[in-house]
């Protein structure tokens, strides 16, 4: 068990290093940070001085080693754009993104499972046909279009919900939450729905397919023969057996929701790490971009590590393989 985790950890570190390396390689092509850093009337001498001071005149592999060395000590440098420590910027923005990601995952899970069960139990109903068609639209419409549409309907026309931002926030330790105020909760609704739609349809279709499959199995038939109530069969037997893949998918999706809430955050001006990243790209704020990509890699690596360990515990075959040193 320990050897397995150690091996996995080692692989994770390599993944992170590779991500950081590729990121650094790409940054050479996003533009010159000095174009934003220096004023219009700076002259050539100023440019040369700044380039040297920031180490931008050095070959990129040396810049990369500096970055890794500092990152290992928890130092991600100072944002060129905002002049604040990068780790502080990301930590400040993280609660907004996590709250949005969790809220949208909950919506997706509840909505997806509910609609999935409904459409599996009534496969021929007209309402099911409607849900299935609507879910196709949900999967195929781009997020920003859904966001703009929701803003137009609920903010501009109906004036029910705010069109941007996070509303009033409350500070609890370093965590800035919008969940404790009514304006914060109202602000959360539209972006959470926008972000959840894709996942919701994914989960719904998964639950439906699994459920239809399970309903055909022998033990459901036996359960029916035993005269159990419909409710007990549907929820006690059938649903339970469909939940394993659903939970796995939702868990893995949480990673990508945290990492790629960028578009939703931009459309709703949600002050999370995604919008921080977008603003940083426009300004060629390399320290923030690098730290963000490493952070995203970390999220994925950690989630996958947890999933691997869970599988390891659940599946004895993996354990045996580990013992024999496979």
């Amino acid at each position: 068990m320990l050897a397995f985790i150690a091996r996995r950890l080692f692989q994770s570190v390599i993944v992170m290093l590779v991500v950081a390396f590729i990121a650094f390689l790409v940054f050479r092509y996003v533009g010159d940070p000095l174009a934003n850093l220096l004023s219009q009337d700076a002259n050539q001498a100023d440019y040369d001085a700044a380039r040297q001071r920031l180490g931008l005149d050095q070959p990129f592999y040396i810049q990369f080693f500096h970055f890794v060395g500092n990152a290992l000590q928890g130092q991600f440098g100072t944002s060129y754009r905002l002049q604040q420590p990068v780790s502080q910027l990301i930590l400040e923005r993280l609660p907004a993104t996590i709250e949005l990601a969790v809220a949208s995952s909950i919506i997706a899970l509840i909505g997806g499972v509910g609609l999935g069960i409904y459409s599996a139990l009534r496969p021929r109903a007209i309402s099911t046909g409607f849900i299935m068609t609507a879910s196709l639209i949900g999967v195929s419409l781009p997020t920003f279009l859904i966001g703009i549409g929701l803003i137009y309907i609920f903010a501009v026309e109906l004036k029910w919900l705010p069109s941007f931002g996070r509303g009033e926030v409350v500070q609890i330790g370093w965590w800035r939450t919008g969940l404790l105020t009514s304006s914060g909760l109202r602000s959360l609704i539209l972006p959470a729905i926008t972000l959840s739609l894709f996942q919701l349809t994914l989960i719904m279709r998964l639950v439906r397919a699994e459920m239809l499959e399970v309903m055909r199995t022998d033990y459901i038939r036996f359960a029916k023969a035993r005269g159990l109530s419909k409710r007990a069969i549907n929820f006690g037997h059938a649903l339970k057996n469909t939940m394993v893949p659903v939970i796995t998918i939702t868990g893995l999706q949480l990673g990508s929701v945290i990492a790629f809430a960028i578009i939703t955050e931009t459309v709703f001006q949600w002050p999370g790490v995604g919008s921080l990243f977008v603003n940083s790209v426009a300004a060629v704020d390399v320290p923030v971009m690098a730290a963000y990509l490493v952070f995203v890699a970390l999220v994925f690596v950690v989630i996958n590590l947890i999933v691997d360990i869970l599988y390891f515990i659940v599946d004895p075959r993996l354990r045996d393989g580990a013992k024999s040193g496979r």
Partner: protein
Amino acid sequence: MHSSLTRIAAVLVASTMLAGVANAETIRWARSSDALTLDPHSQNQGNTHTLAHHIYETLLGRDNDGNLTPRLATEWALKEGDDTVWVFKLREGVKFHDGADFTAEDVVYSITRAKSEFSNMKQLHAEVESVTAVDDYTVEFQMAGPSLIYPNNLTNTFIMDKTWSEANDLDTVQDFASGATNYSVLNTNGTGPYTLVSREVDVKTVLTANPEWWGDAPAVTDIEYVVIADAQTRISALLSGEIDIVQDVPPQDIERLSSTEGFKVETGPENRVIYFGYKVSEEPLASSNVTDKNPLSDPKVREAFELALDRDAIKQVVMRGQSIPTGVANPPFVAGWTEELDAYPAPDVEKAKALLAEAGYPDGFSITLDTPNNRYVNDEAISTAYVGMLGQIGVDVTLASRPVAEHSPLILNGTTDFYLLGWGVPTFDSAYVFNDLYHTNDETHGTYNPSGYSNAEVDEMIISLGTESDEATRNETVAKIWEQVKADRVLLPVHIQVLAYAMRDGVTLPVQPENQPNMTTVTFE
């Protein structure tokens, strides 16, 4: 009787109190990107200055027509008998937000800080040798030589309190390489009309009126400055009533907003010219099929390029009426601008073709046009339109469009043959344009002149502007330089950009030519 009098008095008191409450006006103001920092000398950038002008103050201000106005300095003049010294009389009785008195020592400290190594304001004060406090309310600036236009450079250099700054270790401006954060990036102590209540970077900054301010109390008592990057969302927030004033309105929304009931749009020219530039030196172009020489080194070809450019069509079609076509790379606010310079020829495709044939290119030639796509209003669309116009005279243009962060290095490194760029003139003086756009590209001048244009006579005149002490002679030289560079067709100006602010009815924010509006200028109906 007595009791009814008291009652009337009570009603009167209550009504004045009510009036007091009604006078508290909050403005919710949105724009596309935030101020970068609150450190007043760290960045020479519009958004950053705009916010800073509400909290800090400068020695001199500028009205919406571009004229200098007194601010923390009430009078300014060259010292009698010494035209290398500027003397500033300071406003008395001004207090910083923490209660400290504003005195000459603060000016000395602030200018010295603005001149320090990591300051982005230092270029504007390069000619200052030393600043001394003569008494509490008089400051003398010793210049390297006569510098007639120096007061123009003071309109964005903010004054900090010496005691407060020293107590918070602010002698140097933020150094990115050090990794430490400077206290002034998030904390302020100015003399300005508003004090900082709270700031969440990239999200919201809240300001409230400073009751101790020396000026007339502004109509706007509270400001909520929010950042909404997405243009659609920004306009939606205005339409839904969550925002009162929106800056950075896309041209395609101006008409719609003006015709929507309850909203209006204020427009006005910005102090910024949009132009095309090209290599004019002899070496062959990197992107052309003519490999033995540079077609654009021939003035006839450059004239053909100008005759192909239909500025009015760009105004009508690309800018939807929101631009002011011009024939000179100098906005009308700037000293040195004249109507004759501003005139531009009508497009003439036949004549342009004839000129090309005369120059030896009857079938035209090919070239690449580099354009930014996220810096100026419709920048990429302007370039696309011009590509079509040049196609009509047989010049085959490939468009290379990049974000500004990738576009700027092409200009700075001189690796472009043909490009679009915009230029703002914060000093409102032609010398600022000449120094960077027309002077030969070297260590200290011509930073944005990748054209290879190098005219020793012009260079000499440009340098002489910095130290000329006679105003009439200086104006004459400015006119001469403009005449020469226009005749040489060094740059091809397109138009002056127009600014648009959208707001709800009942609120008016006039357009500020540097796009640095101040909420003290807001009026309510």
